[in-house]
């Protein structure tokens, strides 16, 4: 028996793709401007970073390939980098989960309120993260002299006898950075939670009430959270990315470089080499490590969140 003949109109997958592409060619035109910018300022920089990270490059002379030397230097010959990794991870481990839970809890509580009050409180909670550098006010609250707000209160109460250098003493610097970062952590993710919570179908809650869900915590776990997985994932991405990118706050509060590098983060280190010392190759190797760190942690957190409510 002869092999089954291919139908006449049969085309390969590739040909089909080409046909589709031709059919939708106007859509590619629409995508073009955005994708050009995106390629030029996001994709190419990532690729170029990876290339530069294997070179020695100071902008003036052409890059010179040196293999893994930058990476070897990072891990074996740069104690400040290792310290910055430690600081960044410590900050991320605290700010990430706390900021995330804090945003969710606040959003959850806000949703019970009447609309007008809810709006006012949303603005109060979101305001710190809106505008670029509102955190600078903390330099006055935690100012190191007796005129600082916190110091003056503690002095008056007799808790301390001389002002504490909150922003220069290694013992307190990390604590203040964490405090300020959590203050600023109710950002886009928080808005997403509020909107998501309002979108959960009311009928499900009523059904749950009849079916014997006993209290608000059960309701949260069995109804609210499973309904909000997309928003939870989005909020997690925002939280992880922000927690690993703490840098401006430490510069504003603790100066650059901070006392004994106590709050030096990976991005501080990256800016140090990339902008001040112009060792672009070395800076790029830091950027590449941070890039993969961010992607890896994000993916891991997403894996975890998919198990919520099951």
């Amino acid at each position, binding site marked *: 028996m002869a092999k089954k003949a291919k139908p006449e109109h049969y085309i390969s997958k590739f040909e089909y*793709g*080409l046909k*589709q*592409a031709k*059919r*939708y060619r106007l*859509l590619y035109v*629409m*995508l073009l401007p*955005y994708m050009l*910018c995106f390629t*030029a*300022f*996001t994709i190419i*920089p990532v690729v*170029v*970073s990876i290339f530069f990270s294997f070179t020695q490059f100071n902008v003036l002379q052409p890059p010179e390939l040196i293999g893994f030397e930058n990476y070897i230097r990072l891990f074996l010959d740069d104690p400040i980098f290792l310290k910055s990794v430690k600081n960044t991870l410590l900050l991320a481990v605290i700010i990430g989960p706390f900021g995330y839970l804090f945003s969710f809890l606040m959003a959850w*509580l*806000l949703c019970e309120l009447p609309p007008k009050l809810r*709006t006012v*409180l*949303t*603005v109060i*909670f979101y*305001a710190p993260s*809106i*505008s*670029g*550098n509102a955190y600078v*006010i903390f330099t006055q609250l935690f100012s190191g002299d007796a*005129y600082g*707000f916190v110091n003056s*209160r503690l*002095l008056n109460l007799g808790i301390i006898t001389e002002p504490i250098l909150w922003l220069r003493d290694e013992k307190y610097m990390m604590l203040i950075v964490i405090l300020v970062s959590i*203050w600023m952590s109710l950002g*886009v993710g928080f808005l*997403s939670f*509020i*909107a*998501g919570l*309002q979108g959960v179908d009311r009928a499900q*809650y009523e059904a749950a009430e009849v079916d014997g*869900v006993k*209290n*608000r915590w059960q*309701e949260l776990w069995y109804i609210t959270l499973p309904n909000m*997985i997309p*928003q*939870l*994932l*989005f909020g997690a*991405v925002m939280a992880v990315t922000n927690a*690993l990118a703490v*840098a401006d706050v430490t510069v504003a509060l603790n100066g650059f470089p901070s006392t004994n590098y106590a709050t030096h983060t990976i991005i501080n280190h990256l*800016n140090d080499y990339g*902008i001040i010392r112009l060792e672009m190759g070395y800076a790029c190797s830091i*950027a590449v490590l*941070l890039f993969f760190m961010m*992607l890896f942690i*994000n993916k891991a957190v997403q894996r975890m969140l998919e198990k919520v409510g099951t």
Partner: protein
Amino acid sequence: MKKQKLTKNQKKMQRLQKQALKGQKKIYHSKFARMMTNSRSNRSLSGSIVLLACLFALSLVMLFPVVFMISNAFKPINELFIFPPKLFVIQPTLDNFHDLNELLADSLVPFSRYIFNTLFIVIFGAIGHIVLASMAAFPLSKFKFPGSKLMSEMVVMSLMFSSAVTAVPNYVIMSYLGLVDSYWSVILPALSMSLGLFLMKNFMEQVPTALIDAASIDGANYFTMLWRIIMPAVKPAWITLFIVSFQSLWGATGANFIYTENIKPLPAMLSQLTGSGVARTGVVAATSLLMFIVPVILFVISQSNVLETMATSGIKE
């Protein structure tokens, strides 16, 4: 005799009813309690009150630095250096704003020039971002064609790392394109913010496809569809995109990219001001209030639109 028996029966009935009620949760009858528990029987009133008290306490903590900043801006010089510093201003004045005004009048480059620079960057950046992002979001949200999935995934992936990672090569690329020391070095990277495209794409996905089918039967091309049908339907999304890119561009100092004083944006100039020591504490307070208040007001105006957009912001599998 008969009467007494009846009451006994009634009492028995009442006791039974009470027992039956004990098995269930209480139903609150006061208006206050119903409001607090959202009229749901499985919520305890005391729990609601405790949680709300926590919420209000935390909101006061969150508000504290903001209040301090606002009242600092209106403090006269003797109150700024008082011991111990007060949270609230006693005799509010506009002195700090006058000082700021005088200082700016003396600057080499007129103050209005800095404002123009920032407005130029913010407006071109935000509007350009809206145009580019909606043009890109339309195909990605409503059609399936070769490459569409890859592009969507790349955008979600780029949400996962901050722009600090790409800052160094960005400088090299800018200088290669000859854009260093121009407005475009700040505007162009902002045009392709991935958060904007992501939000726009998700919002467009919920616009009924039937609308597009109808338009395509009527012979509309893709550009007309986007402009006439989609854009009016996604108004909350482009308002949100405006707010998001405004927030990121309003504070942009253009440091590392812009060197010429003439084209520096406002925040760069203000950071020079604030770098000049204790003598200018009042002026610094005034400027930080001004920088803070503009995006907050914009958010207050547009918050219902922003929240509507955020409702679709989830990452789907």
